[in-house]
């Protein structure tokens, strides 16, 4: 009886009881059912009460308003929009604007955050103090204040369009934003795009080939000149065969503003800068904590192998730190997306401003519009955290934990 005797597997009803009632058995199950029933009842009361009140006040309700004409303009529209479009279109315009500023913010916040974290851990006294000062300054000031600072302070320093700073007569910086030439697709544009895609795929194939040869023979093949050659030669060939892929439409000062070209509005720039610098301060601390959580023996082992500090961090420490970093990093991404709704203070036309702001006050249908807006933010957040948890599972697997 050295191994002791094995328990027989639980019977079905017992297993069910465990799953549903936990340690408390059937009693626990009854409590859970009761709890759900109470929650459902509270939810029902809230909905019924709101509905009753709306009916009593004779307030319009339902989603019929979504197909009505909006009748107002929006300053940044990445999908076609005019004032004769419906509120549904306004909703989509706002949603796209929110997603764009969130994506740009997340990208730069991650970049700045990692750099500041590495800077703070750097043996260089000055760099580590500057990075530390950055974190303490930025994360301790209210976000709304920072948004208004970047918007009003920076805007005031920029000249008016007539005196705008210009580079090569194609790029103009003024208090109306940054006007740049806009590429307009010509006949050769599809072939050009295909050529670039092929070149990128070719470069990736070359890279994986070189890695395989590194693992097989221990010798790294130098492939980057070939990859670069592909990237230049293929598009050039496509241009030679199919003609110029696009021409540029130049911005020209006409009347009060620049017409033609593309324009980055100051509201977007101010919001993107604030969101990325603010969130970067928190990300920096998360990354620093993650790196410090890796045993310092790993760093010493890397040094013993003759790896440089940068290579040790990149190849050994950061991959292990990622497991600790990812969950709180996800939180920061979600915060950034939700904080983008503060744009309402500086007139960036994101979802909260055009839909839960203008549309709400024009239609007065608060319950519907606020529920839709909340649902969308919830959905964006769930998708973001879903993507991050897939990524974190992959990291966990590759580290072998």
């Amino acid at each position, binding site marked *: 009886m050295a191994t002791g005797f094995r328990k027989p597997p639980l019977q079905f009803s017992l297993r069910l009881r465990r799953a549903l009632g936990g340690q408390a058995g059937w*009693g626990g199950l009854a409590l859970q059912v009761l709890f759900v029933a109470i929650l459902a009842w509270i939810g029902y009361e809230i909905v019924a009460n709101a509905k009753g009140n709306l009916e009593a006040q004779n*307030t319009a309700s339902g989603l019929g308003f979504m197909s009505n004409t909006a009748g107002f303009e929006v300053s940044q529209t990445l999908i076609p929009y005019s004032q004769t479009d419906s509120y549904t279109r306004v909703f989509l315009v706002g949603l796209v604007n929110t997603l764009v500023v969130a994506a740009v913010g997340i990208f730069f916040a991650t970049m700045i955050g990692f750099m500041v974290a590495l800077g703070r851990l750097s043996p260089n006294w000055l760099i580590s103090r500057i990075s530390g000062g950055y974190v303490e300054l930025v994360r301790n000031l209210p976000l709304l204040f920072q948004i208004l600072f970047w918007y009003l302070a920076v805007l005031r320093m920029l000249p008016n369009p007539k005196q705008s700073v210009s580079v090569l007569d194609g790029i103009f910086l003024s208090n109306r934003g940054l006007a740049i030439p806009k590429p307009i697709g010509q006949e050769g544009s599809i072939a050009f795009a295909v050529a670039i895609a092929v070149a990128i795929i070719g470069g990736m194939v070359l890279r994986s080939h070189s890695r395989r040869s590194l693992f097989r023979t221990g010798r790294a093949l130098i492939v980057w000149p070939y990859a670069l050659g592909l990237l230049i030669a293929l598009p050039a060939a496509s241009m030679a065969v199919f003609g110029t892929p696009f021409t540029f439409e130049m911005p020209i000062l006409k009347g009060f503003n620049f017409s033609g070209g593309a324009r980055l509005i100051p509201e977007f720039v101010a919001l993107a800068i604030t969101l990325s610098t603010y969130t970067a301060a928190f990300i920096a601390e998360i990354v620093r904590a993650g790196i410090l959580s890796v045993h310092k023996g790993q760093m010493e082992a890397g040094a013993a192998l003759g790896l440089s500090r940068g290579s040790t961090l990149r190849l050994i420490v950061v991959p292990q730190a990622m497991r600790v970093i990812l969950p709180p990093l996800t939180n920061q991404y979600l915060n950034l997306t939700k904080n983008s709704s503060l744009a309402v203070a500086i007139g960036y036309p994101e979802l909260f*401003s055009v839909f839960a702001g203008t549309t709400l006050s024009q239609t007065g249908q608060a319950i519907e519009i606020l529920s839709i807006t909340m649902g969308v933010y919830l959905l964006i957040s769930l998708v973001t955290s879903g993507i991050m948890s897939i990524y974190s599972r992959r990291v966990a697997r590759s580290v072998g934990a």
Partner: protein
Amino acid sequence: MKCILTAIFAIVAGISLQSASAQEQESAKPKTTLEAVKARGALSCGVTQGLPGFSAPDDKGNWTGLDVDICRAIAAVVFNDPTKVKFVPLSAKDRFIALQSGEIDVLSRDTSWTLSRDTSLGANFTGVTYYDGQGFLIRKSLKVNSALELNSASVCVQTGTTNEQNLADYFKSNKMKYEVIAFSTADETIKAYESGRCDVFTSDISQLYAQRLKLLNPADHAVLPEVISKEPHATMVRHGDDQWFDLVKWTLFAMINAEELGITKKNVDEMARSENPELKRIFGTDGNFGEQLGVTKDWVSRIIKAVGNYGESFDRNVGAGSPLGIARGLNKLWNQGGIMYAPPIR
């Protein structure tokens, strides 16, 4: 098992408690707005977050303005004390929610009377307190003399107002292009205009004059002559209480009628002793008009003693006697060339 029993007991107790409070609510439900205001001891009145001349706190924290006077007049009718008002500052887009939810009894916040607002918000407009229209404020240095020269301009506007749609309509019908930047509060809008983000600031003309006072050099900015919309500013109450609707409506009418009959803050006591039948009806010495409204007989003299007649309130807050110095224009009485007109008290 014991814990289940306790839980069930607690829930049963909860349900019976809930139904008891529901019964209480049932008996309290017919409580009118007037009774609720009296029980609270103060009128809850929705105003702007600070618009000089219409509703803004002065340096001592007292709210003053034309819209504020309407609230004070109602408080005077109900309590005989114009200070018994709780002012609730609201942004343009929050104002209707506050009224719908019952947080305020009256919305007196330069709100334009439109059909969609009247029908879809669960609220009613009681009467026009100020006839306004939308216009443009622009830097004199840009040398623009007409709104028709504004093609391609950047325009700052406050979101949640009728101004956004009027602006779109005006530029579209005149085949002009523009860029709109919409801010959530009036302060942010005027700051963005001041920083040069926009060439023009658009709003109701009364608001343009009021906001211009906040600029560094008000004299550098001018209001263009075009008036692109009708903006009748009116007071609002919730649906479902006709007595309250009447009371708020006739408070304004009493102020306008008082101006027409020459009753002022100064001569109100003297006029109350008059033998003129029209004045006797107004002051309640003949008939019971105040009681028909659910208040006291002397309701009109309470209003006039508190805030004066409509003309006095206008002059003191936005007209010649104020820093805004807006001309009476459309807001003159009907018999003096304007369109301000109130049904008679009889």
